């Protein structure tokens, strides 16, 4: 019987930040499942996917797209456990400093930045909505770059290195709250329709008792206890709700459609 429960997360934010966010949650989970919980931050999405599939990690905080990738790559052996209430209706925002950009069509011939290649809210969904607006980023834009993280996309747009960028709405809101972006200069010109995003996933061959304990632990978090409040606040969640693989079918379709999944 293993003694350590290994957890990681996709690096859509700075890994230190992720580690800080995870600390109280890790202590809470450890208490609930009776195992030592260890968090390893990585700087590459693919590494977290490979780790979970190959039994080197036990639970990972995936984005919608990375979950689909893991699920496909493992032959359906990855199951999503829970997600935040917000993740049911997640959105991305397109931001710019350029006065002449007001709708997606204006992006033709511009420099554009996505987040990381494997990000749902930073790449897959924005790309998917661009494609439905008849813009193929690879052909119609002057230059497409991948900043690697949502914060970095904002920095790139604010610094004028790119004309526009797309990112996760929750990071955008966090940055505004923290006053880290100058809203008079950087503005949102398009917000996508909602889609399913982040979840906590495990392998399906995990001990069912542990899986049950984990789900219960997440679901029983609430903002009334001080511990629950702290955790939920850090996770930027109102509460956790159960989720199922079917929720991500739409993302899978979008990925296949955009050619990001074979």
């Amino acid at each position, binding site marked *: 019987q293993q003694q350590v429960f*290994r957890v*990681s997360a996709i690096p859509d934010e*700075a*890994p*230190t*930040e992720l580690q800080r966010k995870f600390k109280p949650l890790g202590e809470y989970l450890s208490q609930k499942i009776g195992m030592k919980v260890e968090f*390893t*931050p*990585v*700087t*590459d999405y*693919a*590494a977290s996917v*490979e*780790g979970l599939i*190959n039994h*080197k*990690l036990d639970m990972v905080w995936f984005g919608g797209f990375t979950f689909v990738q893991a699920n496909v790559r493992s032959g359906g052996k990855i199951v999503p456990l829970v997600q935040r209430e917000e993740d049911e209706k997640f959105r991305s925002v397109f931001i710019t400093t350029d006065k002449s950009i007001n709708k997606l069509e204006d992006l033709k011939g511009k420099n554009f930045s996505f987040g990381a290649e494997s990000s749902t809210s930073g790449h897959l969904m924005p790309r998917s909505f661009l494609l439905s607006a008849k813009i193929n980023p690879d052909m119609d834009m002057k230059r497409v770059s991948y*900043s*690697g*993280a949502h*914060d*970095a996309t904002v*920095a790139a747009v604010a*610094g*004028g290195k790119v004309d526009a960028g797309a990112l996760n709405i929750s990071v955008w809101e966090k940055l505004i709250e923290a006053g880290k972006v100058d809203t008079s200069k950087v503005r949102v010109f398009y917000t996508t329709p909602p889609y399913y995003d982040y979840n906590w996933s495990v392998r399906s061959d995990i001990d069912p008792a542990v899986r049950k304990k984990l789900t219960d632990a997440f679901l029983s978090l609430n903002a009334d206890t001080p511990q629950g409040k702290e955790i939920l606040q850090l996770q930027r969640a109102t509460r956790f709700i159960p989720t199922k693989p079917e929720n991500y079918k739409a993302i899978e379709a979008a990925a296949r459609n955009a050619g990001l999944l074979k």
Partner: protein
Amino acid sequence: MPPRDPAWRSRIVGCIVFVLVLWPMLVQAEFKPWILFDAQSLQATGNFVASFFPPAHSAEFLQLVAVSTWETVAMATAGMALAMLAAIPMTLLSTELLSISRLGSGRVARLPAWLRQIVRWFLIVLRSIPELVWALLLVRIVGLGPTAGVIAIALTYCGMLGKVYADILESSEAAASNALLQNGSGRLSAFLYGALPEASSELLSYTVYRWECAIRGSIVMGFVGAGGLGQRMDESIKMMAGGELSTMLIVFILLVAAADGVSALLRRRLD
């Protein structure tokens, strides 16, 4: 009268070819140095660089940096030790300087030439497979953490050390090792008694430099969650946290200066 310089024409032709090859590359790389000096970009750069000051120095952060620094140094040292262990035999296999069949005719016999070629390509593959690929493979095998980091360094650096060691030996003065080989000593002995004393200081400089590279180039460690300064640095860049960045740069500069000092010290010991 002195005859005409036989090398002159080939030099002129060489220059012309060089310019002709360079031109399209300059175009492709959008080489326009003057854009560096327009006022707006200068100011923007100034702002970013200004954000480096003051360096972050909260106790918590400094502690984090200290821990990461040791992690990095330890991983780099361990990785380098393994890399050297593997690289030295490959160097000995792949240097033509130590070839016995070359003596006399200047041409290496077929079989050793093939072996040498295989080793060279093996080293090329080792060092040109990108870190990310090693990371993905190692995560599968050993999972996230320092083991993967150490192995990743060992593998890529083995490829680099093997090649550069061979190059250094190959371009050093060959008289000493040649004389030994010509008198019938084995390749290893000729290496120890002829080539090594000839090239030792150069080999040493390069090894220390590589060690310092291992400390700095820790991208791969970030990929495999091995931590260390490189990963911290990566994070700070993404966050545009100039202060943190400058603290870590200072640590790098100090480490690099220390490595330089050690290199000079060791070379002086050789003398």
